[in-house]
């Protein structure tokens, strides 16, 4: 048997020729700081040092490490933090933290080489980007990473450990943070799922016994629905649990069944065709997956087309007739376009994963989830268990972005396998599963007509969205255009077009970015035709007080005032500047409760919320620390466990607005309780009276529920008020069914983006981004900036690179690896200017609302408007890849 030296100790290497180093490190040596993500050398999360040089351990045969030294994240700075670890902490160069160990290993090696040869010179952005080009971060922490690498190389972190704005940062830069995929119980089995090989088929004679006969297999269960029908490639058929992944995969392969193929249809264009095979017959429609966050209404079906859903229309008939008249009269102000947006995958770096374990009648499930409390309730209900017998845990979550908010197959399979096997079972999706069957933001075709009145007001707007929802229903895109730019009449219609593809899921402002992609380009086009400055026109048509202030900020930016004249450039490289607006609902969750306790002279804050990289732990710690003149590190924050006081799900940008008011109320209660129970007052003239009082206080507990908001200022209304009676109904349903409240005031973002087009190579590069945000008082400035940066870079990914591709015949997802599903890298991050406008939410206790979604809504249309400014072409389909730019530029040259 070969050996390596790993982190200074001898480690044995298996003789198996197919063993890969990452699996040896994680599974045999239990060094779980090294993460397995793409398995194909693309993302760098598994990077380790081999004889001092960073390499990807996911592609490295274990035998290649024989006789060599291997250093993992656990070995970097084992005698005290490495300067690069300190720099990552200080600059908040991380969010969910799942990519962080790989980045830190590479950056630390870069630092050590750099310091030897270049001293404390500062590396350029280009040098840093080239060095880290083999790493991907889905949260988009690139801005902090640039700063961290530059400052560490400059010698600014040679000294003491810094204070991090993110309180769990130390665990994340050292690889100690444990995610669901890192959980390992004694005697734990590994799960695997047999998935449908065909897009539409009846599965008969499913025989699980060959799998059960394999040594080391603990359980095999069927996951087939009662109609024995699978409706997309990858639909679950059965699950197995074996002593290791290889055994599980062997067992999956051993299961036999007859696959009677049924007619299938793939994608939007085929699905809506009259002669298309029907995905759900009438009696099966209830089997369609509901992809809406807030319920969704009934709708009629015609074949695979579900809709129209037009609840948010306003005088639709009038809008139709005005637009038809303008069309017939060739009104030069009438803007009519058809836009297309692609399917965007969440591409969480931590895959969907769950580890289930029964202890007697108690069930503990670690889940990579956005909602520990909600999952506990759903699991208790589904498996008829008492709520106090179910414990859901998510200490750290490697990204969610909306895809980890529901009870998924990873969790169902883990629980059912654990019950059958009478042993703990872990189910971790592989990258192909993660990028094909865990949900997505549906592609859509968007037809828009926008008519200004002769007086320059917005007269009529029509938007019809046909969403490519696979086997899901309840896309809402067009309806969202009701809540911005009031008009005399609006005709807003949503359709779901079903086909034999996996169902979508909520994704960061779900229908917001597609809606804005169409609407904000139409506004831009109208401004050009009306010869009005596009920001000026938005100021005229959009009375929202938050956005009025943002428009003033944007109009005053140098980059906007000095933007190129349209179609004024002829060279190879052309610059352009574009603007766009986005909004999102201000939501908060009723019943959100924060408990504050004093235990052994320290404050402990508890809530069954979770931190998916958004900074929830730190927001709670900051608020409490500030109230007691303490440091955030002085506060013990307990989250990520369902047996804590009820907390909100991390979705709908509702966490900050739900927990900050409850925290503030709990702080007041705790202060009163401390003063009431104090044996003696703080020493006279003490400069830390609270610290003294807390240290001397007996153990005590208070808790507070999220209170209602105060009375908003004049003119500050909930976004749904724009939608009149139907808006009221929608808000009422959200409150009753989901305990979510749509509060007054509209979180908003205006973005001014500067791009450069290389007309020879069809390449668009975002050079500068100015992000204006009105989200009230910023709860945690460094973390809010990280959220803004992350939302922007995901928006850039949507605009320029990302698209799921499928085989049009078989329905296989072709972009099921990180090589083909292309998310932005560090060099794709532009220079960023974030402007927080902190007014507008004084009626919210604490004054803060959420940021995560609103900041990604306007990015893609701002890029599109900038491209139009640069090359004079209205690009109608994202992503704006080189193939599309080349085709558009060629078409124009030919014309």
């Amino acid at each position, binding site marked *: 048997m070969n050996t390596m030296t790993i982190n200074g100790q001898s480690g044995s290497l298996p003789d198996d*020729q*197919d063993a*890969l180093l990452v699996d040896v490190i994680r599974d045999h040596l239990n060094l779980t700081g090294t993460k397995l993500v793409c*398995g*194909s*050398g*693309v993302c*760098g999360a598994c*990077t380790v040092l*081999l004889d001092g*040089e*960073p*390499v*990807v351990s*996911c*592609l*490295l045969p274990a035998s*290649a490490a024989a006789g060599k030294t291997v250093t993992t994240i656990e070995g970097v700075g084992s005698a005290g933090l490495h300067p690069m670890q300190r720099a990552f902490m200080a600059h908040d160069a991380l969010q969910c933290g799942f990519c962080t160990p790989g980045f830190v290993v*590479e950056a630390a090696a870069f630092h050590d080489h750099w310091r030897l040869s270049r001293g404390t010179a500062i590396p350029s952005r280009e040098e840093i*980007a*080239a*060095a880290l*080009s*083999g790493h991907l971060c889905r949260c988009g922490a690139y801005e902090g990473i640039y700063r961290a690498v530059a400052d560490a190389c400059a010698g600014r972190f040679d000294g003491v450990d810094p204070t991090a704005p993110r309180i769990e940062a130390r665990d994340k830069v050292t690889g100690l943070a444990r995610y669901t995929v890192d959980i390992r119980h004694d005697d734990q089995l590994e799960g695997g799922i047999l998935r449908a*090989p065909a897009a539409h088929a009846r599965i008969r004679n499913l025989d699980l016994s060959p799998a059960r006969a394999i040594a080391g297999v603990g359980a095999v269960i069927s996951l087939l629905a009662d109609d024995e029908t699978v409706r997309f*490639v990858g639909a679950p058929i059965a699950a197995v649990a074996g002593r290791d992944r290889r055994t599980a995969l062997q067992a999956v392969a051993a299961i036999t069944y007859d696959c009677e193929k049924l007619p299938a249809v793939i994608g939007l264009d085929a699905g809506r065709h009259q002669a298309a095979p029907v995905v759900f017959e009438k009696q099966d429609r209830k089997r369609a997956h509901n992809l809406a966050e807030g319920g969704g209404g009934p709708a009629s079906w015609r074949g695979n087309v579900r809709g129209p859903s037009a609840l948010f229309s306003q005088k639709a008939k009038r809008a139709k007739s005005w637009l038809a008249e303008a069309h017939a009269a060739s009104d030069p102000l009438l803007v009519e376009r058809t836009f297309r947006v692609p399917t965007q995958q969440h591409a969480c770096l931590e895959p969907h994963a769950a580890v289930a374990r029964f202890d007697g009648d108690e069930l503990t499930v670690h889940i990579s989830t956005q909602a520990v409390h909600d999952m506990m309730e759903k699991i208790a209900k589904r498996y008829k268990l008492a709520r106090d017998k179910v414990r859901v845990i998510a200490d750290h979550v490697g990204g969610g972005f909306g895809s980890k908010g529901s009870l998924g197959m990873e969790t169902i399979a883990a629980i059912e396998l654990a019950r059958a096997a009478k042993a703990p079972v872990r189910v971790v999706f592989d990258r*192909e599963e993660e990028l094909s069957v865990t949900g997505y933001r549906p592609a859509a075709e968007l037809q828009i007509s926008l008519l200004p009145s002769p007086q320059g007001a917005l007269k009529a707007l029509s938007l019809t969205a046909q969403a490519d929802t696979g086997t899901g229903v309840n896309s809402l895109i067009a309806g969202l255009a009701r809540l911005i730019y009031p008009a005399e009449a609006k005709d807003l219609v949503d359709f779901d077009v079903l086909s034999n593809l996996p169902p979508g899921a909520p994704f960061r402002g779900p229908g917001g970015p597609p809606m804005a992609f169409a609407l904000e380009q139409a506004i831009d086009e109208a401004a050009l035709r009306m010869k009005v400055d596009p920001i000026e026109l938005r100021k005229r048509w959009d009375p929202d007080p938050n956005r009025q202030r943002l428009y003033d900020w944007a109009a005053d930016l140098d980059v906007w005032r000095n933007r190129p004249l349209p179609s004024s450039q002829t060279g190879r490289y052309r610059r352009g500047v574009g603007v766009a607006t986005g909004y999102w609902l201000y939501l908060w969750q009723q019943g959100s409760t924060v408990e504050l306790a004093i235990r052994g002279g320290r404050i402990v804050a508890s809530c069954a919320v979770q931190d998916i990289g958004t900074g929830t732990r730190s927001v709670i710690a900051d608020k409490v620390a500030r109230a007691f003149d303490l440091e955030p590190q002085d506060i013990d924050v307990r989250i990520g466990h369902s047996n804590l006081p009820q907390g909100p799900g991390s979705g709908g940008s509702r966490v900050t607005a739900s927990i900050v008011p409850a925290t503030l109320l709990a702080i007041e209660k705790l202060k009163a309780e401390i003063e009431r129970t104090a044996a003696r007052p703080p020493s006279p003239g003490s400069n830390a009276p609270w610290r003294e009082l807390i240290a001397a206080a007996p153990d005590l507990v208070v808790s507070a529920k999220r209170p209602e908001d105060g009375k908003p200022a004049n003119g500050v209304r909930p976004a749904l008020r724009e939608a009149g009676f139907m808006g009221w109904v929608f808000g009422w349903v959200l409150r009753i069914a989901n305990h979510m409240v749509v509060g007054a005031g509209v979180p908003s973002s205006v973005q001014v983006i500067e791009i450069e087009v*290389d*007309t*020879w*190579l*069809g*390449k668009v*590069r975002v050079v500068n981004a100015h992000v204006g945000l009105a989200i009230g008082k910023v709860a945690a400035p460094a973390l809010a900036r990280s959220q803004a940066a992350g939302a922007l870079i995901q928006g850039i990914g949507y605009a*320029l*690179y990302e698209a799921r*591709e*499928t*085989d*049009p*015949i*078989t329905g*296989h997802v*072709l*972009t*099921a*690896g990180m*090589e*083909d599903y*292309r998310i*932005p*890298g560090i*060099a*794709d991050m532009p220079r960023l200017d974030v402007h927080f406008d902190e007014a507008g939410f004084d009626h919210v206790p604490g004054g803060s609302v959420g940021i995560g979604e609103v900041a990604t809504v306007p990015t893609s249309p701002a890029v599109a408007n900038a491209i139009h400014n640069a090359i004079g072409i209205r690009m109608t389909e994202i992503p704006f890849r*080189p*193939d*599309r730019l*080349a*085709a558009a530029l*060629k078409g124009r040259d030919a014309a």
Partner: protein
Amino acid sequence: MNVASMTMPDAEFRAAGTDLSERRRSGVSKGPLVDIIASGESGISWGADGAATIGALTTIAAIAADARIISAYPGIAASAQNLATPQIRRLATLGGNLAQRNRCWYFRNPHIACLKKGGDACPARSGNHLYGVAFDLGDCVAPHPSTMATALLAYDAHVVTNHRDGVTIATLLGDGSDGRRDHMLKAGEVIERIVLPPPLSAERADYKRAIGRAHAEWPLVEVCARTVIADGKFRFVRLVAGGIAPVPLRLTACERPLQGSAATAAAIAEAAKQAAFGAKPLPMTNYKLELLEGLVRDLLEHLAA
């Protein structure tokens, strides 16, 4: 090594494994493996004529960073500097780069049959071939994945295997008509070293790829260009493109009008239009011809500057 490979004719050779490991994990590759990383040639040696010979197991990073390669063969150095990611370049070998399998998303998917996995048709041709060839030379529409092959063809390199000497890149990779193969190495045949002719006097060279993002993407189109310019005229032009055909292609229709012509932007732009000569794009790959023309202009303007 040879003994092992003779007893296992289906065996795949494994150097660093940067291509093979992913196919092993997915199940696309299942046969026996023969490890060669510990037993082959690595390192760069130089002849008296200034020509380099590169051992097949020399890493891409070593080639990219070698001062003498950068000076004598800048097109090869630039190719090595730009392919894959830093972590991969530190492991991947030159021989492995030449003998790697293609990146087609149908080929890489273990659930889909294709010509290169023993199937009888190319599913990308009738399906989604966004990243497919624009010079449709065979049954399979996957472009050849080797950036180094593109550069080595531009330099008229020869390959020495355990069976043969003097194998040209064209012989090594074939003409692209056999849709079942990514290279023409026989069972048990392994690349041992790559032999380069000496560089021309006063030649300049460069390499560039067209990609969507800034870094770390397989090329949509890539070109390695070599020129000798004297008295303002092209005395020698060599252009080889990758990413557009089942094998790297010399762009002779582009090279020909430039030989002896003025090294001006206008002449370059005119010649670049010939880059697509002989192309047979697929429905989704027309754009590659635009990018090819742009890349040729970009590189030649840079070399003429």
